[in-house]
């Protein structure tokens, strides 16, 4: 198994701003889980990483998920580890939350809630945008 540091020869001279955009709800499709897996790996490359949740993507962070009845892994707990992985820029679009009747208090982790007008500017500053 290769663990971190293997790619150190590539960096840190190139630091790019990577944004991972989540627009899909969890469980109905695998995209939310596999995007999270990318983010956990991406965290090991000394890049500027941010994660965005908008549209149905905000539902990934809903508290109180209980997957025992559907037999799938409850990976909403894993968002709590993002801080340990040094992923600190986590943005949620305000309008998407409101449209789904949710507030910041409904989310599993502390996030930065941004209005579309502000999130737009953060998105515009990225070098690489990976959507799933």
């Amino acid at each position, binding site marked *: 198994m290769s663990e971190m540091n*293997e*790619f150190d020869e590539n960096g840190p001279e190139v630091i790019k701003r990577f944004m991972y955009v989540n627009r899909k709800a969890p469980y109905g499709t695998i995209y939310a889980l596999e995007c999270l897996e990318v983010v*956990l*790996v991406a965290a090991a490359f000394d890049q500027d990483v941010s994660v965005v949740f908008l549209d149905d993507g905000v539902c990934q962070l809903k508290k109180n998920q209980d997957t025992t009845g559907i037999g799938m*892994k*409850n990976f909403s*707990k*894993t968002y709590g*580890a993002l801080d*340990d992985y040094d992923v600190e820029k986590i943005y949620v679009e305000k309008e998407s939350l409101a449209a789904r009747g949710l507030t910041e208090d409904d989310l599993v982790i502390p996030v930065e809630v941004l209005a579309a007008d502000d999130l737009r500017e953060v998105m515009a500053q990225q070098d690489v945008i990976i959507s799933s």
Partner: protein
Amino acid sequence: MAYECNGVTIETDEEGYITDISLWSRELAIRIAEEENIEMDDDHWEVVNFLRNYYEEYQIAPAVRVLTKAIKKTLGVEKGNSKYLYELFPYGPAKQACKIAGLPKPTGCI
């Protein structure tokens, strides 16, 4: 591959991680450790228990650097460093400690 433990056969994947993590037990951990030439002492258990608690909370086996940092936070700097962890688990805290703890392969391996 499989482990025999208390008369029960416990299946693993190709790399020796048990495939049904609900079948883990302390006895099994000792069996896996034997296979890895590790004799479990309190220090090994401390790390294995830490990993299991981490998994319980976050549903992932942490990458090595994350594990090291998290151990440093809870158990102190003399244990939260890779030298200490590699002394306990010579083939790596991920490869061996997670395996012994009955967890999947760490998330965040490149």
